């Protein structure tokens, strides 16, 4: 039985971070795993940073990933991955969507967005490994830009570290979406799964 496995999902309001954690939670329960997590909703969401936490295992009590104990940091957006990099365990892995979401403060000239190379350099120095993919592009390929989160979910399973079975999460995705949308989402999942295996 898994003792403790911590995943931090970092993205921007509207990217579907919460849906990812819902799917992970349901799949974990279906596989008989113990699961805890939390998220920030409300004021913090309107276009701001969004994080959701999923923790699996018998030794897990709290709703937050202890700083220095995150096994996988899912960055749905480069700067948001970097924002939470200090949560990583030394051997922790980053799975990164390389497409940025530029905040309006950059257009207003109030802040700068880092170059992807800078983000990757920092993340590589901090993390045990960085797997990068253009999930936003893959989502379009799958049939809808709204499936970026599902591509990332596929990538999370593609690294084959999770205690949840890939077949279980796919069944969960299948059940969550209408028959019309399920195939697009399964395609998105598969594209992410393959991309993570390749990088």
């Amino acid at each position, binding site marked *: 039985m898994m003792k403790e496995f911590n995943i931090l999902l970092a993205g921007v309001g509207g990217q579907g971070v919460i849906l990812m954690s819902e799917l992970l939670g349901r799949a974990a329960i279906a596989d008989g795993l113990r699961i805890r997590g939390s998220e920030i909703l*409300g004021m913090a969401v309107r276009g701001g940073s969004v994080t959701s936490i999923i923790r699996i295992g018998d030794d897990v009590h709290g709703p937050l990933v202890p700083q220095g104990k995150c096994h996988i940091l899912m960055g749905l957006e480069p700067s948001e991955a970097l924002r939470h990099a200090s949560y990583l365990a030394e051997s922790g892995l980053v799975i990164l969507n390389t497409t940025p979401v530029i905040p309006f403060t950059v257009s207003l000239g109030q802040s700068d967005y880092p170059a992807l190379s800078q983000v990757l350099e920092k993340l590589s120095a901090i993390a045990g490994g960085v797997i990068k993919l253009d999930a936003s592009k893959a989502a379009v390929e799958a049939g809808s830009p709204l499936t970026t989160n599902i591509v990332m979910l596929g990538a999370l399973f593609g690294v084959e570290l999770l205690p949840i079975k890939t077949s279980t999460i796919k069944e969960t995705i299948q059940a969550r979406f209408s028959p019309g949308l399920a195939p697009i989402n399964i395609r998105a999942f598969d594209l992410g799964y393959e991309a993570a295996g390749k990088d």
Partner: protein
Amino acid sequence: MKELTISSDAPGQKLFALGNEAIARGAIEAGVQVAAAYPGTPSSEIVGALAGVARELDMYVEWSTNEKVAFEVALGASICGVRAMSAMKHVGVNVAHDPLMTASHIGAKGGLVLVAADDPWAWSSQNEQDSRYVALQGYIPVLEPSSVQEAKDMVADAFALSEEFGQLFMLRSVTRISHGRGDIVLGELSRERRNGSFQKEPDRLAYVPRVARLNKPLMLERFRRIAEAADTLPYNRLEMRDKAGLGIIACGLSYSYTMEAVRWLGVEDEVSILKIGTPHPLPMKLILELLKSVREVLVVEELDPFVELHVKAVVGEHGIPVKVHGKDIVPAIGELSTRKVTEAIAGLTGKRFPVDFARLDRLEQEVAPLLPSRPPTLCPGCSHRASFRAINMAAQRVAKEYGEDVEPIYPGDIGCYTLALTPPQNAVDTCVCMGGSFGLANGMAHVMHAPIIAHLGDSTFFHSGIPPLINAVYNKANITMVVLDNSATAMTGFQPHPGTGQTATGDEAVSLKAEEVARACGVAFVEVADPRDLKAAAETIERAIRFPGPAVVVSRGPCAAIELREKRQAGEKIVPYYIDREKCNPKCDACIKLLGCPAIVKQQERKAIDAPLCTGCGLCAQVCPYKAIVEERSG
């Protein structure tokens, strides 16, 4: 397989639930029949979830106009012998404070539970006050869960406890419980549905001074009995270790951080832990047993030193030779975490940190300069953005006439529109409490020579905007009151309210209009503006500001999030705008600087509209001096 929900009759099965859904489930298991709330993060999903299953489970569920009314609804039902609940955020408890203090004198006939959801770190709030002090003041017993599962179990038990002791109970949640997630094991569903019965008992129910004096000793006696029982309630648990020199008293969610910290440090056998699930009244026998067995005690709790003060009092009273730590080493500000608790325990046990926290702090400092600021912002297409542009235009025009240096004053309020605090709107000068914008404006009007434009949303108007509006009429405050009406309680999740024509459970309802209310209250200048017609809206607001005496403008435009969802569902095409590079002056930036719409981006001196984000509201086209922003034509 049928998917599990919070209403499933499936004892023993596991559901992946949001903390607030777990709280709702607990109430369902207890057979709650009446639930009322005003939405407020992090509490909103409790009654939201109950509303969704009300019909199926034969419950009455409502969104009330404010927390005071919501609590009174629950109290009224409890007086009639029915199990009732009210849920609100911590600052909502302030609004309900008045009936709450007398409700504790009345006691409970039907089980009565108040869920108070505190927000450490004030993620979505104007402060991070600790609701346990309200309970202290009112002799209200408090249950505080350590996990999502326990939140469900406690609520399920709270109704029975409330009836057993004849007292109102409070469940203190926090953001990380309410918006925590976890697997919960479902319990049995109570199918009991009672008929309300009212017995005339003025000596218990009608609070004239004599009745207050009559009932206070009864309330104290009820509380004494609960205090006696606290040691035996399952939520309090003493885990003693023979050779422990350190004892930890961990309250509510702090217990989960403590468990992880103790294991992380490898001191499981060196510390005794008292888990507290009832911070008020505390299990004093268990506390004394722990205090007498150790040299040092650490109290771990979120926000204020509530348990700590009681523990220090009992140490003094009994003269126990034990040093009590708490907020001297555990922060009183913000949320706790496994790290914070680990650091506190490591300091007392002399253990090394399990990871190099200083290195993590250095990493954070290293990456900080690279990170763009990403504050929450009004959605693309939000009608408030248009309203604020109109307010800014009108107010600045008039302010000049008051004097060269005169700036308009914008008392703001609680809702999505609080986001107009930042540039480019800069239109929230104060934000204190629900309805506070109109209230503060009343005071400013009598001491300031400047245009005062107070604004609040439609739901906030019905919540607590009307009394200060009447006050402005009665006391002749020369202010402009703008109701930013997007027909939704948008920030908390689009709950219906008295202006939306719908109830919590989807029934048709009246649709009150703020302008009709304002007219009925005697406001002489009342007009409705469409903020998407920027020029006309600004002119209306300007006339309101110039009007001598209180004036109301209802600036009515749809919530973009709702409009977009409805258009998508209807298969309606969303036609975005684009910037014609031929016409656009690259040096201008008016669209960005005046509106700050996330759909307008600028990279390498080139402005463009992010088509997937654009809702086609056309506001930017109205502010562009070069007519360079146009609707995308089909084909």
